[in-house]
């Protein structure tokens, strides 16, 4: 299945101070990207049941609610209703973040027969050794941060474009990585919300984190790294 490209977000023009009747550009709606693999293709690291629920229910809900919030925002801006604009911010961050984060996540994992789990080669592999000493050391740190995260959130391997180094960060709920730093680019994100692992691992999040590395798609992460550090 081909991965439909993420719809690029066109910015809504803020017609608040224009006296001409410039209408905002047509509102973009988002839709669920297809997975480039079958739901069961990541077993036994992640069960097919989880993949299906995660993709068809959770991710879809974020997209549905994001579209709804954007539509409401569009209306509120046109009406000059600032109080509604302000009230919608958290729904936009939450649902938009959920959409973005999960879209990245599906590309961060891949079936073993498509090189999921294969250690990073190329410049990212080298950068990991420089920043963390070894891949094992990186994995240990990410797993520690992921296990320690209280509640719901994500653990990230990111590139700080300004300082030109790799960082490990966590974000709460569906906050995207940029909320931790405007210059941070996500290379790898691991969903540690309970829905990502509960049916299979129950409350043993550390086991989920240990096993997910068997299907991590380093090719994708390396691609992003090389592009962003050029």
């Amino acid at each position, binding site marked *: 299945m081909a991965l439909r490209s993420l719809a690029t977000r066109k910015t809504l023009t803020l017609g608040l101070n224009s006296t001409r009747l410039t209408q905002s550009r047509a509102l973009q709606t988002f839709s669920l990207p297809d997975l480039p693999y079958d739901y069961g293709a990541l077993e036994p690291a992640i069960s097919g049941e989880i993949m299906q629920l995660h993709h068809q229910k959770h991710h879809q*809900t974020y997209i549905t609610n994001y579209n709804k919030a954007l539509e409401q925002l569009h209306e509120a801006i046109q009406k000059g209703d600032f109080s509604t604009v302000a009230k919608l911010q958290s729904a936009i961050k939450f649902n938009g973040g959920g959409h973005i984060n999960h879209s990245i996540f599906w590309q961060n994992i891949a079936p073993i027969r498509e090189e999921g789990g294969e250690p990073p080669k190329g410049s990212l592999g080298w950068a990991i050794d420089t920043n963390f000493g070894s891949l094992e050391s990186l994995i240990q740190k990410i797993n520690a941060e992921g296990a320690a995260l*209280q*509640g719901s959130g994500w653990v990230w391997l990111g590139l700080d474009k300004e300082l030109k180094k790799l960082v490990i960060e966590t974000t709460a709920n*569906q906050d995207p990585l940029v909320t931790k730093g405007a210059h941070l680019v996500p290379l790898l994100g691991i969903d540690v919300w*309970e*829905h990502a692992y509960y*049916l299979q691992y*129950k*409350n043993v999040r550390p086991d989920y984190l240990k096993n997910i590395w068997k299907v991590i798609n380093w090719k994708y992460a390396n691609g992003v790294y090389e592009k962003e550090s050029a």
Partner: protein
Amino acid sequence: MSKRALEVHWGVHHRGFVDDLNKQLGKSDILYGSTMDELVKATYNNGNPLPEFNNAAEVWNHDLFWESMQPGGGGMPKLGLLEQIEKDFGSFTNFREKFMETALSLFGSGWVWVVLKRREKRLAVVKSSNSINPIVWDDIPILNLDMWEHAYYLDYKNDKAKYVSTFMNHLVSWNAAMVRMACAEAFVNFGEPKIPIA
């Protein structure tokens, strides 16, 4: 709520919090002799929680959660509690809607509560994130519902609405709530009682 869900939620999650808390408390004597309430408030540390807070609060929260439910629960409260709900929400139906709305609008992990607010002297439905507990805001909890995904995922997958309405229809223990309300009223001054003259 299925047997399996209870086995895992109570037997693994709740038990885990108790064990971990005991381990943490074993390290020093500072908090020795505190009640659970005191423990939660002390470790909350006015918004800068200490490492023990999460475990202490989750033990407290789950203790109330099991108390907030009973087999054959649901239905409606009676007497004083029903009167107070009607006074503060307009009607029991409004209260149910507010409870549902609050539960479904929670982002991420957390809890929904029915509390008696000390200062406002009224009941309210509030939500809290992660393990936060309204006693740190000095309010008195009457009931709660666990909205962490682990609380409903085995039985309902991501259908939160079904979980919350099942709780309201079949699980919530108004008996327990009425008892807690009676105790809570001792701490809030509702003014002179209207004693009917014979």
